[in-house]
């Protein structure tokens, strides 16, 4: 046999998984081929090393944790476990949703409205819903696009819906869409916040600075002094494209009474563009999330009754994504968001 054929067999050979005929051929070849001998030696050494790799001890808390979760599992017919212990993936999904939620406002000043709608539809296509309220609300505010979009029926219809619902503050649409079931019937886990008009405050401002690095430090100091949470992000390529130098975005989450103070402090940092204040009305999105959560819980019960594993998996996934959205909205309305775009000025 040729080296090529022998080499194929060396791996099973060292595991005694070759038959006697193959063994004879391999051994005869090895006796005369130093290359293949070397290769076998390497394979053996490698397997030995992998066998001896360090493995940590299972932490002692394991059995107790598992018992807790198994017991939860038993009583979780109405409460899918994903709701209680969101995975890391879920938190990331929530973070992505958070960014997406806010992104509309900033991008809306650059993007044509068509793009915003397309962007939003992409996000919600899984649920077959029309663009929901926050984006339409933004559209409503950005008057400059109005003329271009008068002929777009669904946009106008939705904006009209939006008006109807926001005119009745405090009155959550108790029956949603076609099924007519009251939203209140959602399992206890998901109803801790009573739905009302949900408004998220978002302030954004641009500061021209000599050095983004130093400016970031300064903004962080301001955030910390005001007990605001912050997150430093590289700005999107879109912002980069509009600024010659490097740029950086810092997003703060602060309690409403701190906002004025923070903006005053930011003003002391350099050339500041007048802060823009946007209110995003999220009432419809919130109602939609509540409705979806309720629907999904019902479907999950049905799927559990039918032992439909595949279906259940998908439903749990959907449920988790809607729960994350709801959480994001809860977070959004609880605090004001301040976005600081630091733009480095290029010195001639």
């Amino acid at each position, binding site marked *: 046999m040729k080296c090529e054929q022998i080499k194929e067999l060396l791996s099973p050979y060292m*595991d005694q998984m070759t038959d006697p005929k193959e063994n004879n051929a391999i051994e005869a070849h090895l006796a005369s081929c130093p290359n293949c001998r070397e290769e076998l030696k390497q394979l053996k050494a490698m397997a030995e090393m992998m066998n001896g790799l360090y493995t940590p001890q299972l932490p002692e808390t394991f059995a107790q944790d598992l018992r807790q979760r198994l017991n939860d599992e038993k009583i979780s017919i109405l409460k899918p476990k994903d709701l209680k212990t969101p995975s890391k993936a879920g938190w990331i999904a929530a973070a992505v949703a958070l960014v997406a939620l806010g992104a509309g406002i900033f991008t809306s000043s650059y993007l044509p409205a068509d793009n915003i709608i397309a962007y939003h539809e992409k996000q919600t296509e899984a649920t077959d819903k029309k663009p929901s309220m926050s984006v339409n609300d933004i559209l409503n505010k950005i008057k400059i696009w109005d003329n271009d979009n008068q002929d777009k029926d669904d946009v106008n219809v939705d904006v009209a819906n939006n008006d109807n619902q926001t005119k009745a503050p405090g009155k959550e649409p108790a029956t949603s869409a076609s099924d007519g079931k009251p939203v209140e019937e959602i399992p206890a886990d998901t109803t801790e916040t009573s739905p009302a008009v949900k408004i998220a405050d978002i302030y954004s401002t641009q500061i021209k600075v000599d050095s983004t690095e130093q400016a970031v430090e300064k903004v962080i100091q301001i955030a910390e002094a005001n007990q605001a949470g912050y997150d430093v992000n590289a700005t999107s390529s879109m912002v980069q494209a509009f600024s010659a130098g490097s740029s950086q975005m810092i997003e703060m989450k602060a309690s409403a009474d701190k906002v004025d103070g923070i903006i005053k402090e930011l003003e002391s940092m350099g050339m500041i563009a007048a802060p823009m204040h946007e209110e995003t009305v999220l009432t419809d999105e919130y109602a939609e999330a509540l409705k979806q959560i309720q629907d999904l819980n019902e479907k999950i019960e049905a799927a559990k009754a039918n032992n439909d594993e595949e279906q259940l998996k998908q439903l749990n996934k959907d449920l988790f994504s809607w729960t994350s959205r709801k959480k994001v909205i809860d977070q959004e309305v609880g605090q004001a968001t301040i976005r600081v775009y630091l733009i480095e000025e290029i010195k001639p």
Partner: protein
Amino acid sequence: MLAEEILVKQSLQGDTLAFEELILPYQNKIYALAYRYMGNEEDAYDMTQEAFLKAFRSLRTFKGDSSFGTWIYRVATNVCLDELRRRKRRIIPLSLDEPLATRDGDSVEKEIADMNPTQDIIIEQEEFAQYIQNLVSQMKPEHKNVIILRDMMQLSYEEIANVLDTSVGTVKSRLSRARNILRKKLNGREHFP
């Protein structure tokens, strides 16, 4: 009836204590397996919990045509692969063993991130473990599976075939291919024979 079968029956009726007893002999093994897939203790812990929960939930799909041990390995392997797949969607895919087509139609193996590119540094055992883990984590699932199950978990070819629901022949050829990819990667390193 074997003790394991009794425990399975009791677990099916929702007896969580029976289930705990059922899985006790496999806890450490499954944790070790998850550690090999995930590469760190925290994720391994989560995946082990997840695997046993999933096993409890889907115990009725265990038909007894393979051993419970094989079945639980299969559940755990799938839980880990699912999680890795989910994560992979968020990062740029980079596979050690998927040839990168070049313009002239040739195939070359991708240059993978090497933790320790200087070849004349003698690698300590722990470092080697990390290095191997890093290499294995970048392999395609079909290769990763056989390397982990055979060379790290010491399962037999037949057990592996059962866990992966494939034939012994397939295990043989995949393992041979996977080992050679790793061997080539390790070849030339100072500590390697």
